[in-house]
């Protein structure tokens, strides 16, 4: 699976937020989408998952755009939003069941995957509760379980760590690694740079709606002319200080 953004320009209505974005998320890689508040991370993600339509340029998954094959395109993506969105009238069990139905998953296999994650997140005894009434962190865990029990080829995770306890952050990173090992790709936007540096193979640095730099840590160090031990944090600070 390869996600490719080619000359993507877009935003809300006539307001342009992202300009001429070019990057790819290759097969079996974890890509960190990094940038300041308002740099266009969430807007980029909204374009990729199809909530917004690019004004210019194309977004393809394995060469197909959303318009060419809407169901296949959506089938390939699993998405964890920045703020958990849940149905107020569905129980946790029904949330997972609905996701399985929508994505056409085999119920037995999907439940097997879901149950082990639910145990890990200590949600397995809350299947008949309304998750809309959970705390922020628990809601986020529900979103993670729903996304990671699918067999999507591309996982898009928007700012996943806020509200999660440290144990859950570890568990999530394990899930990401497992999906990567299974051949899936992950695009993850985050402000937690230390974690991003640890888990991501490549980075896309966004600055005011444009791609400032892409590549792995070594390439970024070279790009910003920093020493060979510079952390992602140092690179990030160097980017913000540029005019």
């Amino acid at each position, binding site marked *: 699976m390869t996600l490719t953004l080619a000359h993507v320009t877009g935003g809300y209505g006539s307001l342009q937020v992202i300009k001429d974005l070019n990057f790819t998320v290759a097969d079996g890689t974890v890509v960190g989408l990094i940038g300041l508040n308002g740099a266009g991370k969430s807007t980029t993600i909204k374009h990729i*998952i*199809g*909530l917004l*339509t690019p004004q210019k340029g194309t977004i393809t998954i394995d060469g197909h755009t959303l318009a060419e094959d*809407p*169901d*296949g*395109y*959506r*089938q390939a*993506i699993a*998405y964890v*939003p920045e703020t958990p*969105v849940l*149905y*107020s*009238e*569905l*129980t946790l069990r*029904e949330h997972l*069941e*609905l*996701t*399985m*139905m*929508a*994505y*056409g998953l085999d*119920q037995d296999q999907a439940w097997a995957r879901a149950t082990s994650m639910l145990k890990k997140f200590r949600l397995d005894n809350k299947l008949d509760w*309304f998750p*809309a009434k959970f705390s922020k962190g628990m809601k986020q865990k529900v979103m993670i379980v*729903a996304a990671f029990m699918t067999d999507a080829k591309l996982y898009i995770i928007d700012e996943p760590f806020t509200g999660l306890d440290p144990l859950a952050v570890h568990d999530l990173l394990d899930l990401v690694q497992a999906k990567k090992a299974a051949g899936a790709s992950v695009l993850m936007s985050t402000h937690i740079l230390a974690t991003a540096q640890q888990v991501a193979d490549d980075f896309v640095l966004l600055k005011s709606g444009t791609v400032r730099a892409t590549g792995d840590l070594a390439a970024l160090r070279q790009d910003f002319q920093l020493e060979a031990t510079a952390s992602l944090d140092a690179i990030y600070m160097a980017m913000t200080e540029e005019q």
Partner: protein
Amino acid sequence: MRKLWQTRLRRHQKTQFKYLRLVFNDHFVLVLLILFGALLYAYSQWIKAMIIPAWWLRPALAAVLTVLLGFGSFASLSEPADATFLLPQTTAFAGYLFKARRYSLLLPGVVAVLAAAASVPLLQVWGIDPLTGGLTLAAALLLLKDLDLWLQLIDHYGVPRPAWLARLPLLAAAFAVLLLGLFTHPAFAMVIALALNLGFRWVVLASRFEPATLDWRGLSAAEAKRMDRLYRFYNLFTDVPGLSAGVHRRKWLDPVLPLVRKTTAHTWAYLYLRGFLRQTTYLGLWVRLLVVGAVVLSLISTWWLAALLAALFVYLVGFQLLPLAFAYSEMVMARLYPVPASQQRAAFQHLTGALLVIFAVLLTVGPLLAGHWLIALSAGAAGLILAIAFAGWYLPYRLKKKPLLPA
């Protein structure tokens, strides 16, 4: 305080007009007109047919008037922030609340006058002069409502008073007074209502009312509850921003859920069925209209009127279900599902059709229990025709006008 009341009132009226315009859209006004006309006609036929008045008629009318009296609560238009910002003005705020009380009398006053006017033909049946009888009955109702609103107002103040000086005993007393008035002449009811009203003003208001004892939090909580009820009503007709629909688990309804199979093709049906069963508004409304409709139909003896009313009830239910179609328009995850967009519309259409057909069939239980076979048949047929027309023709037309998921 006067200025504050005026600004609040103006703002309140502006929003209400906005919503009322949406509630009374062209279709709904048409339906209401037909319903109103049919009711008037049935009422006039019923009066004409009544030569020997039944013994229960007077208690029944008194009960109806008492229930109408119960409608209309004290609208203070207060806001939670008042408790913080207007706290130093607590004493002066009583002036604001008095104005609010007077305004709250407006709508119930209209209802009282209309109720009195509708009672006039019955007064004539009992040999009471229509002019004086109607006028004094209206006056009695107004005086009682005035007293009711005073009681609702002092509920928010620490006024020392006996336990029986409350709304429920007042309504019981109102029933007795109205009954007496109907047996003799409504003028007697008016005199007693006047005595009660003045007595309350002299004894309780004049000497025991302490404007500094206002319970701010109780006041804003009561107003929030009142506005919530109002917006919930509006929400049946249009989208009210910021109103979150309540949800009940209703576990006892779970046996219904397996009706939808758990396959990709039924994704939206799965969701809509649960929305209907568990969101507070829809199921309750369906059941309420069903009970009212069945009772009304059991009382009717004209076949074409029964058919008209059955069709009307089915239309009303169908119309009230419409907002459910858009209940998930803000739901990001639902927009990402890899299911064809047409499935959502089909699922909602299917659910509405099934609910309306069941509704139409169950409506006939009323006339069947009353032993009216012809009425049941005509009502059932009309209801079914409208159910199918609504789901098959009207619904697609409505859903075409507004996309289920905004772009």
